[in-house]
């Protein structure tokens, strides 16, 4: 009943290759966008922005980035935390070196800086594959965090090694620093998420994305049909790092406001993003969002439920959170090894037939 596809005919190739070929999906997408851009900013408060929405958006960008590399191009990376650190520190250096440069450009530029670093650390992927590549990217993780801790230039020689974001405005409205309104914080993240998700979606169904998938599915076959593995893999590393770098820059400048490399961008964060991608669904844009939401929101939700509603002691609640989240991850992966995105896909297929399944 929800999907009324009778009478929808697609008569040209562009019609057929749209992102949302079904009219209902398209309107639903526009409706969600309208709510997110026009509705939510009016009702969002500090708690929702800082503890729920902004973290989900920032982590979604990181998950999108890793999904391009791991999900679409098949290269396993454990360097996500390190690349986020590159984004954060280059954003900080750019913001303090060019105080008049608009923060939006700083964030984009830090994405490009991270892309360059990503290319450098992507070079080994031409020789080594699979788990061995994971170890090589692990080296990136440790090296980058060590670098940002060890070279005082990166944190402008501050006494504690912390970097603190200066206040910056967009159209006269503060978007970083402590005086930022929650809606401004949310909207700036939403802007980046929208642009990057649009970019990711269109990249992955372009010839570039198809060359990534060819490499992922069988690199020798891809090479035989004319895909240049050097180009495809390095492209994937560059684009992925660009995304991850932007998420790191937002993580530092908009979300937390002050970070410290070893704590904020440690190996835990790399695993966290990898889990998001695996749980959400490898090779799926929606999966990146679903995975990030699952990993970020579930602990908050359980905490509010167990401590806020049921008044459990905080330590028991926290330990239970680990048990419940862990059990749910295992449950989801057993029930649906292809991630939440596949679950959503099945659900949609059912809905299209409902209420008259064959």
């Amino acid at each position, binding site marked *: 009943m929800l999907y009324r596809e009778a009478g929808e005919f697609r008569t040209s190739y562009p019609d057929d290759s749209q992102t949302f070929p079904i009219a209902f999906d398209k309107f639903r997408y526009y409706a969600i966008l309208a709510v997110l851009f026009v509705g939510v900013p009016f009702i969002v408060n*500090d*708690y*929702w922005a*800082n*503890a*729920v929405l902004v*973290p989900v958006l920032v982590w979604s960008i990181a998950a999108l980035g890793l999904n391009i590399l791991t999900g679409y191009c098949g290269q396993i990376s454990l360097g996500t935390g390190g690349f986020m650190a590159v984004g954060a520190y280059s954003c900080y250096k750019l913001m*303090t070196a060019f105080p008049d440069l608009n923060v939006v450009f700083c964030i984009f530029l830090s994405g490009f800086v991270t892309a360059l670093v990503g290319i450098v650390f992507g070079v080994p992927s031409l020789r080594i594959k699979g788990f061995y590549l994971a170890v090589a990217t692990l080296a990136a993780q440790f090296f980058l965090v060590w670098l940002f*801790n060890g070279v005082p230039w990166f944190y402008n020689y*501050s*006494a*504690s*090694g*912390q970097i*603190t974001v*200066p*206040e910056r405005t967009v159209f006269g409205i503060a978007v970083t*620093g*402590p*005086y930022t309104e929650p809606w401004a914080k949310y909207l700036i993240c939403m802007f980046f998420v929208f642009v990057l998700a649009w970019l990711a979606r269109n990249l992955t169904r372009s010839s570039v994305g198809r060359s990534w998938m060819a490499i992922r599915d069988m690199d020798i076959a891809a090479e035989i049909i004319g895909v240049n593995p050097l180009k495809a893999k390095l492209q994937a590393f560059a684009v992925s790092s660009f995304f991850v770098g932007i998420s790191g820059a937002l993580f530092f400048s908009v979300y*937390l*406001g*002050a*970070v*410290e490399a*070893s*704590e*904020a961008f*440690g*190996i835990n964060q790399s695993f966290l993003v990898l889990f998001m991608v695996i749980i959400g669904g490898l090779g799926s844009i929606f999966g990146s969002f679903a995975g990030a939401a699952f990993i970020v*929101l579930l602990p*908050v*939700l359980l*905490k*509010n*439920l167990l*401590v*806020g*509603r049921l008044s459990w*002691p*905080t*330590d028991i*609640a*926290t*330990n239970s959170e680990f048990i419940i989240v862990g059990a749910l991850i295992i449950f989801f992966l057993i029930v649906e090894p292809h991630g939440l995105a596949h679950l959503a896909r099945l659900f949609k297929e059912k809905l299209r037939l409902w209420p008259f399944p064959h």
Partner: protein
Amino acid sequence: MKLNVTVAALICSLAAPVAHADLVIPWLSYRTGPFSPSGIPAGDGFHDYFSLLNERDGGIGGVPINVIDCETAYNTQKGVECYESTKGQGSLLYQPLSTGITYQLIPKGTAEGIPIFSMGYGRTAAADGRYFPWVFNFPAHYWDGASIAIKHILDLNGGDIAGKKITLVHLNAAYGREPIPTLQALAEVHGFEVDFVPIDFASSQEQKSQWLDIRRKKPDYILMWGWGIMNAVAIQEAANIRYPMENFIGIWWSGSENDVLPAGERAHGYKALALHRPGKGAPIFDDLQEYVFDKGLAAGTGEHAGTVLYNRGAYGAMLTAEAIKTAQEIHGVAEITPAMMRDGLENLVMTEEKMAANGFPNFGPSFAVSCENHGGGGEAWIQQWDAHATEWKLITDLIQSDKELINRLVREDAEKYAAENNIEPRDC
């Protein structure tokens, strides 16, 4: 329909719970994770003291105290979540017990008008009240600690430590790096050599290579800025390389029973700074026993009472309670707001009489906070571990830090912070 109800219930669960009228004091605890051995006793002490005030006196000025626990696991992001979820409940002040979270909350608290009380931790420059009106780190801060440790070494060497080698073993985080500029400045004044051995979060349980390095360098004294499991491992490693324990001095966060007990007899003689007295000697423990433990109201098991970190928590709670009383006196109302709380903290005068009246005679230094000085007097004792009696003993009188030098450094760092963030100083 059923699904919709479930979804609605889940969304409601994401929203933070709402307020009610008490003196609300959030406690960002960590009872889980690698730092929980330090977080549990401190949290117990803090809770138990306020439970005592509620039971014995009916709160402060007749208003009951509601301590809200929020678990951070020493994680900065969770700390931010805790701050956001509790600030709407009328929170009077924040005590994060974590330097990393304190750094996050300094700008937020300043912008939203909620004081941050980081007792003996956090950002040292916050001691300059002209630039940090909402942040307090009395009775002594890290740079005082570094200076006090060096003064103690000076006393041991008859005032001359030129050419001595001093090594700082520190957690490679904002917390551990805090004393570095002070030690460098002090090294110039007194002519000793100083070098730094950072230990990462991840490797705090595995410090073999760092200690082999230390054994090779043979420093005359080792200072330590460690926390959680790192302390115990470092003390064991120091014992393994047979380093003379009496030359090994920790900051007040590296001087609890948890840190020395794992090394057993070999930790005998290890020294640490003391912000307050260790042990169960103070009369407050009789009241705690009568009103809290015997009634089954203890936050934990009560077994930690009298340990260094339990006393730290209780001492912090006592200072908080005194600041609330001060605020109530200044403003003449019992149910104070965060802004009044700030005035209370800023006008807090801790005297020996007040401490004795609270059941803490001679427990901590006497000091007065002022508009300009949010860092207190900068005094601490040195305590030494007696492994045979398994107790800490104070071995010196209160030592005053080199205030002239420290105040200059604090002012410089505060001015740098102000320049980066366009902050105008207040008139004091």
